[in-house]
């Protein structure tokens, strides 16, 4: 190309880009970015939380939007892969001009997005990342779920009091920040309750053979095993534990809650316990209304905890934008930080100084191929 032509062409191109950029924000919508694991290993989590978020945005827009403007949700998939999140979050912020970012379930990938949002001063709300490190990144990072020190302690108390266990084995996924964090807080809580950790074994998320570790656990003769993993691995662990004649209860955290756990694990996961954020069979009016709306929107599918948290994360953000009275990222951040007594589907949320939600947890048991509500534990 002729050198004299190059400059006009380039500037025309730049103008075009800026015009289309304007087009996106110019129609008055509030652009909210979302990143989620829509495909890959933790896809059922990503899809659930995304569907919850989508339902919230549609509900908001049907009621006239926020501050009189429509809310525009832009969703990006990180394929459950490390490294992909930073690409999509950078795109959401710099190219799409998101005023706030929602995402995601897996702590490892939220930890990847958090520094980027913090640097750009864009508030980020994670629906379900429970590792404490996520919000420690900076004052722009929030979450609507409880954190692992709380979840770990809840399970430690449950194992001590309800299961009457004194000796427990811990089986951790060393590849996941979530699993390592939860295992650590469970151990601390359980030892404080006078319990004894008789075996500590590790696996790598994605492994298929767990018999070596499970045999070691069996020979240590614990009363229960704490497995803070994700559902695909937990299902295989439960199957192989059953094959080895390990009949003691397995316990875990919110990483278990997925239909896939039941599909793969079948009768092997029967009778085991885990803590999570909400129970779809609870009787509170907020939950009943949400479950009904969700079923109507998504072909009768029962919303799991991730869907409820995805919904809450969007509603929580919308509430803050309303109170801020503007779409300025700084104002939204301050309003988010000032949240007290926000009525969410998953319970009443107050944001503390660490920008974590203070709220209660529920414990579910797998029974007859379903998740059954056992008890609620207040913070």
């Amino acid at each position, binding site marked *: 190309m002729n050198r004299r032509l190059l400059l006009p062409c380039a500037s025309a191109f730049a103008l075009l880009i800026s015009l289309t950029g304007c087009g996106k924000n110019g129609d008055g919508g509030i652009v909210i970015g979302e990143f989620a694991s829509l*495909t890959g290993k933790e896809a059922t989590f990503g899809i659930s939380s995304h569907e919850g978020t989508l339902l919230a945005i549609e509900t908001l827009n049907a009621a006239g939007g926020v501050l009189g403007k429509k809310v525009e949700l832009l969703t990006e998939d990180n*394929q459950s892969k490390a490294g992909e999140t930073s690409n999509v979050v950078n795109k959401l912020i710099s190219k799409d001009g998101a005023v706030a970012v929602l995402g995601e379930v897996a702590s490892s990938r939220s930890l990847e997005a958090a520094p980027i949002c913090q640097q750009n001063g864009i508030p980020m709300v994670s629906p379900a990342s429970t590792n404490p490190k996520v919000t420690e990144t900076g004052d722009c990072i929030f979450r609507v779920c409880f954190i692992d020190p709380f979840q770990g302690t809840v399970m430690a108390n449950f194992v001590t009091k309800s299961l009457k266990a004194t000796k427990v084995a811990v089986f951790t996924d060393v590849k996941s920040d979530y699993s390592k964090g939860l295992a650590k807080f469970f151990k601390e809580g359980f030892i404080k309750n006078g319990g004894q950790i008789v075996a500590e074994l590790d696996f*790598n998320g994605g492994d298929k*053979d767990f018999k*070596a*570790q499970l*045999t070691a656990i069996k*020979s240590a003769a614990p009363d229960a095993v704490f497995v803070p993993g994700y559902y695909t691995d937990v299902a295989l662990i439960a*199957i192989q534990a059953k094959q080895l*004649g390990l009949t003691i209860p397995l316990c875990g955290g919110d990483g278990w809650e997925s239909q896939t756990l039941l599909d793969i694990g079948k009768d092997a996961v029967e009778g085991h316990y885990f803590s999570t954020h909400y129970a779809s069979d609870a009787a509170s009016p907020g939950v009943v209304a949400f479950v009904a709306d969700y079923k109507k929107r998504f072909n009768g599918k029962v919303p799991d905890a991730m869907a409820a948290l995805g919904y809450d994360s969007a509603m929580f953000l919308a509430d803050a934008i309303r109170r801020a009275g503007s779409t300025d990222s700084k104002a939204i951040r301050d309003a988010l930080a000032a949240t007290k007594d926000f009525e969410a589907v998953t319970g009443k949320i107050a944001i503390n100084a660490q920008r974590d939600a203070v709220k209660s947890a529920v414990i579910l048991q797998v029974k007859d191929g379903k998740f059954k509500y056992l008890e609620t534990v207040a913070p």
Partner: protein
Amino acid sequence: MDWLLQQLINGLALGSIYALIALGYTMVYGVLRFINFAHADVLMLGAYAAYFLAPAVGTVFPLPSLTGALIVTLLSVMICTGIGILIEFLAYRPLRQRPRLTVLITAIGVSLFIEFTCQHEAVFGADTKPFPQLLPVHDFNLGGLVIGSNDLVVVVTTLVMLAALWFIVQRTKMGTAMRAVSFNQQAAALMGININRIISFTFGLGSALAAIAGILYALKAPGIDPLMGVQPGLRAFIAAVLGGIGNLPGAALGGLLLGLLETFAGGISGLSNYRDGIAFAILILILLFKPAGLLGKATVEKV
């Protein structure tokens, strides 16, 4: 003591799977002198073929049953044999006269191509799918020791396949031709051997083995995804090298050894994190002292 014996059983069961996959690697290497990295992905395709076939077969022969399982396996084996021959025809045959490195890199490319195509929503999707129960399961309890029926099936299948392969390679006309091609392709062609046919046959046979291994692996861990072949494939490749690549009993021995090492390292409280590290460190040590592998013959490369 119980603990030790149970780990021995676990290790042998895991090792047999590695051995079965390693047989496929080593056989193709024996004939063509190159590593077919797509082997692990054919294994995955075998498991998926069974996953999709099982409901259809189940309507005629209710699953889980031995007949049903055999029919599903047979059909998957046929599909994978076809895929194996097709891969060779499309990807490797055009490169027959090129340097071996070109073919090796192409093999890695084929492997990635299959993995990522299958992860696409429209193909299989990246999420884990529950693998159906093909065989009736029974866990034998011998005084505290547990032996799963699936594990026995794996061990027996591996032994049968090893014997069958040995028979094919050593005692049949096709096997003689395979060995001739392995020895010297040009000379074999001059003796009237149809090289293309022999190589297609080798790939078909290797892929059939991969399909069987894939189904057995999926029965052991009944959650399948498009990347399920990567880890066992890598381990089996190493098992083949450990046993002496190109050597059939060597591959079986290498697989068993790797399975046992991994199991014993993984069963130590506090050290299970280093499961693979310990297993592979020992392998490196063995290869330092026996570079051609346990049963491999040291050969002098003519330059």
